[in-house]
């Protein structure tokens, strides 16, 4: 869905590139998907009388670091786009690569966090807390995984000079990456901080 395809009909309305417009629509549908999950989380949390004290269960400092890493990955992503827009075709693939690596670090830390929690007996099936925690962070993690794959694919294309004439592809992967980052900031706030 995300790698949109041949647009053989010629656009007659030049306000915004067709693929970019579709990307925004796709992100709108993604926002509604996460809205459904977040609303479920809020509803369940407020109807559960003995919701655990979050900082006692979750490793907030570690995940705060992870959040920081993801935010940095958005910075590297926007730098990549800035470089390619200003014609730095040599330098920008490195920033794409950095973004992918930071994304992988994020996923690894999340895996460590998940393993530790499961070791302590916090599982999706044991409590509503576990169910919402693993579902929300899990679906976000899947989106990051998809994002890392897309960024790696774009990196390979970038090193081969695939964006010399048209760097719209960098902008699209960037939009998606920032969206995933933004969702995490919301999830981090409502799951870990509040």
């Amino acid at each position: 869905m995300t790698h949109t395809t041949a647009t053989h009909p010629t656009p007659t309305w030049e306000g915004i590139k067709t693929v970019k417009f579709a990307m925004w629509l796709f992100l709108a549908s993604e926002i509604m998907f996460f809205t459904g999950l977040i609303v479920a989380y809020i509803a369940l949390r407020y109807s559960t009388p003995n919701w655990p004290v979050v900082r006692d269960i979750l490793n907030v400092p570690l995940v705060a670091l992870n959040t920081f890493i993801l935010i940095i990955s958005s910075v590297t992503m926007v730098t990549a786009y800035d470089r390619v827009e200003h014609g730095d075709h040599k330098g920008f693939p490195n920033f794409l690569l950095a973004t992918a690596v930071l994304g992988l670090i994020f996923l690894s830390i999340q895996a460590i966090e998940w393993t530790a929690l499961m070791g302590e007996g916090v599982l999706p099936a044991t409590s509503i807390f576990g169910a919402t925690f693993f579902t929300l962070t899990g679906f976000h993690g899947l989106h990051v995984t998809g994002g890392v794959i897309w960024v790696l694919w774009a990196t390979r294309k970038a090193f081969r000079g695939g964006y010399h004439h048209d760097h719209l592809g960098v902008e699209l992967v960037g939009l998606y990456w920032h969206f995933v980052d933004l969702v995490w900031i919301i999830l981090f706030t409502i799951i870990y901080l509040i």
Partner: protein
Amino acid sequence: MHSAEGELSFWRKYVFSTDHKVIGKQFLFSSLFFFIVGGLLALLIRTQLAWPWEEIPVVGPLIYGEESGNILLPERYPALVTMHGTIMIFFFIIPILSGAFGNFLIPLMIGAKDMAFPRVNMISYWVMVPAFLVMVASFFVEGGTAAAGWTSYVPLSARPDMIPGSGLGQTLWIVSLLLVGTSSTMGAINYVTTIVTLRAKGMQMFRLPLTIWALFITAILVLLATPVLTSGLLLLLLDRTIGTHFFLPDGGGQVLLWQHLFWFYSHPAVYIMILPAMGMASDIISCFARKPLFGYRPMVFSIMGIAGLGFIVWGHHMFQSGMNPVLGITFMTSTMMIALPSAIKTFNWLATLWRGQLHLTAPMLNALAFVSTFVIGGLSGIYSAATPVDIFIHDTYWIVGHIHYVLFGGSLFGVFAAIQYWFPKMFGRTMSDRWGKVHFALTFVTFNCVFFPMFILGERGMPRRLADPYNYNFLASLQPLNQFMTVSAYALALSQIILFANFFVSLYRGRAAVANPWLANTLEWTTSSPPPLENFHTAPVVHRGPYEYSSPEVSEDWLPQDRVLGGAAAD
């Protein structure tokens, strides 16, 4: 991949085609197939309600089998109801309106060569196919199909061991609907992008035919509502597979949460199922009244109003669920407000007809039936929206009558009108208007005989989804009325054979169609029937709105959107 025209292989041309016209026809034929399946399920329901637990001659043994003694088992009745609803809604009405007519008409009516993303368009059909297969497969698994209603209310649907139908059948139901949702979201992104970016030169937004406006706003509804259903379905799947308790109170879950997530999608889905029919009926009525559509802009704004309000009314399905009554009043008010834009549309249709030169062709008759039955469906909706009334009629046949007046009386008559109106453009041949009228007359009469008595049943307190109401003394006297409805339902079903025969015979033997058989104004009639691969021989340029019928500027009573008038062109 082949690129040159005319040398596409069979597979690329008819199966994995990226041509929106072919994809539209794929959706058309698949959804018509499921119309038959859903209809036959309805006949089984009606048979049970007329003559409970009796063996049906010939077909009974074939359907219910030796194991059950050739009759319907009590626990399978909810499965019939569930699958009738699911198939009619997700596999017939939504795909035929948005999938078939949306695909076929959008590029043609806006003057584009194809959709913005032809390959995504192809994939959106080929994601539907596994959805079809998974749902059909669920008829043959142990325990049978899902049986928790088309709404799949929890906890019945949330645990595999509840009833026979909540086993594998329910899981397959969820998987199938996830695929349907993916397909419609992809379609919606494509439709919105296409309509915004690929309109022909001169085709301003307020020159779009109402069919396109309706499909456009429907696509926005799909785009924003479907992902919420997806999130709910995924949570339900997790409850069933890895043992979470999102919707199971014994583990701290919330039953009402499912209902909120489900109806947040499924109420807008009601408009996904009616708005395209409203748009198509508007175009057909204006064409056959030979008059400009009355109040074009109010028509557009009322579609927007209905769609916008559609997002804040979902709670009216839940008045009796134990939801906070204060919230109920809010939902009642917002629901009743929908009557305003709906009434604007109805009065505009009537004003369009007023003193028009009515051409009572088969498409026009069906469009008029759409308007009149939609009024009954809509007015009964106002009753249901009032919380005090709803306490009495909730979960009775009144509600069943209401939904069928809107969905069969509204959407389906709209579909009948659209099939016969655009058939010449789709297939280059003409359907018989005489047989179309016979089909219309029989359908209209039998439709009312089947569904109007449902309001009476509901008032008398007959609950829906009850396999044998006559166990209860106060309902026993309703059996003769139910038998009348069932006989009418058989007649209604038989009448559809006329439509199918007319459709398929015309496909091969119909009179060759001219480019513009109805003398209509919109762009699809300016190209040949059927249109060539990229729709238009030369890119159309639009000079005016779509409803310039009986214009004083020309001697004919129609004025196509792309015609250049001598000297001072309108644009």
